């Protein structure tokens, strides 16, 4: 099976700061890592490859520095990695991101299954997986927690639904996004890390992907972030004093006043 895994490089710490001068995200000097939910997609991709004697290709859209995350993915066991990088991609929203990923997947050749993480910890939308499926014109299943069967023309997956779980058969090729329950990611092997160091990681830009720069990046994205700001905290916490009995009485009083209970 030809498996593609989409990973995103994100700030390693989710505590972020706004540059007081420009009002934008101060991302300079922040350590970056593979989006943690994507590690489950990567692990599952590697397991599928091992079971089917296939191939795993990892894709990411990001700046030159995202190369590190792709090498890390090779260290885990991915066979190939491609960096999708172009100044034109900067500021892409989920639509533009999935547009670029779809173009890259089509260019990379024949594929059977694309795996995404449940969501990125910075963007937090969970939209890129399903949007990518639609852009590729292939089926999509969300929140997969187990792959039950890998066939030639279809796969059977268990997904988390509102009421429990559902077993779904999906025709290939297709896209799924996975939840943390699906596996326990391995630790990269020493040999893998050596391979990763020497691996060739090609970079594809907008032109090579046949992408009109006007439809991606901040200019081309359907949505635009007009402003970012820190959420207003509803004032300072109120600490309830006294012994447990009195603390509980005060709490019940407050919760009843605000009709919270």
């Amino acid at each position, binding site marked *: 099976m030809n498996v593609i895994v989409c990973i995103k490089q994100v700030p390693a710490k989710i505590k972020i700061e706004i540059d007081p001068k420009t009002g934008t995200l101060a991302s300079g000097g922040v350590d970056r890592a593979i989006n943690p939910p994507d590690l489950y997609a990567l692990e599952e991709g590697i397991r599928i490859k091992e079971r089917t004697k296939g191939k795993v290709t990892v894709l990411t859209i990001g700046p030159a520095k995202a190369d590190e995350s792709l090498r890390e993915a090779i260290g885990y066991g991915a066979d190939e990695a491609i960096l999708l990088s172009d100044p034109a991609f900067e500021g892409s929203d989920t639509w533009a991101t999935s547009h670029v990923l779809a173009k890259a997947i089509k260019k990379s050749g024949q594929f059977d299954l694309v795996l995404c993480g449940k969501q990125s910890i910075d963007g937090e939308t969970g939209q890129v997986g399903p949007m990518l499926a639609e852009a590729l014109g292939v089926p999509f299943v969300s929140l997969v927690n187990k792959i039950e069967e890998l066939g030639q023309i279809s796969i059977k997956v268990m997904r988390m639904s*509102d009421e429990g779980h559902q077993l779904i058969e999906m025709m290939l090729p297709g896209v799924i996004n996975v939840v943390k329950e699906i596996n326990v990611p391995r630790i990269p092997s020493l040999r893998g890390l050596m391979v990763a160091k020497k691996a060739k990681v090609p970079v594809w830009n907008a032109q090579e992907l046949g992408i009109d720069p006007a439809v991606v990046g901040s200019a081309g994205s359907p949505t635009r*972030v007009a402003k970012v700001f820190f959420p207003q905290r509803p004032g300072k916490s109120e*600490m309830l004093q006294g012994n447990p009995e009195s603390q*509980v009485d005060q709490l019940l009083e407050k919760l009843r006043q605000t009709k919270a209970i």
Partner: protein
Amino acid sequence: MTADGLGDIWVIAEQRNGHTKAASYALIGRARKLADECQSRVAAVCLSQGVADAGQLAAFGADRVYLLDGPVPDGWNDDAYVKELVDLARRDKPGVILATSGALGLSVIPRVAVALDTGVAANCISLDYDAQNRILVQTRPAFGGSLMANVVFPNKRPQIATVRPHAFKKGEPNSARQGEMIRVDFDRRSVTAKTKLLNVVKDLTEKVRLDEAEIVVCGGRGLGKAENFGIVAELAEVLGAALGTSRPPVDDGWIPYAHQVGQTGKTVSPRLYIACGVAGAPQHLAGMQTSEIIVAINEDPKAPIFEVATYGMVGDLFKIVPLLTKKLRETRG
């Protein structure tokens, strides 16, 4: 786009067992207010005709109610839903489409958006009309709620947003309001589904759904061991609340992953969140800090959970929680 402010505002009314979910009613109420501000119309779109409360959707603010020739409401019909919503939107050209950020918002809505060549503002917590630019301003958290972003659609229509449960309160119905019922018949056979539901496994352990619950009681590692979860489970029971947890109890096998709140678990935004023996690590806060009222019970006065708490109680959870349960039980009979 129509000449009026936002164009028609569609709300996807999600049903469970034939009844529209509270979050969808709340969203219709919000859409009504927006429509009044900009002289637009509201339509509720039901993906199924077997809707018992279609009339109520008008009472809560819908001018029109679309009843799509829908499949079983609780099943798996993503491919049909996408096709039907796209066809209908192409025909009637809404300016705005709103849905809740649950199951549909994580699969059907983004696919509909791409098919309509537009984007999605996901997991919003507020929606406002910018009269000057005649656009919708959607506010959504990012970076685990430590940052807020205003998202706009400069050109593309429809403007599509998914909204977190409890972002808006369910309003009061006005039974004098009448809505136009529009039945839409689609040829189901024309949809060649590439996915098929083979089996459903119901999970009965979770009585109240975590991400939809109005109240969440959360037990952290401070509970010490699996058996002690009974203490928080009892509190949840008297409050009709869902039971949440932090990551360590899941890692240690005290409670299933489905209950985990946080960066790698569920994101919840209830009216009331009661954290018992939870330290308040950033990864946990990421999943709950947009809750309306946060109560923290922790013996360590320096625990970071107190920084986001509305009401903090420094003390032993093994004393405080059972007392709280007892007093609630007494008053509720």
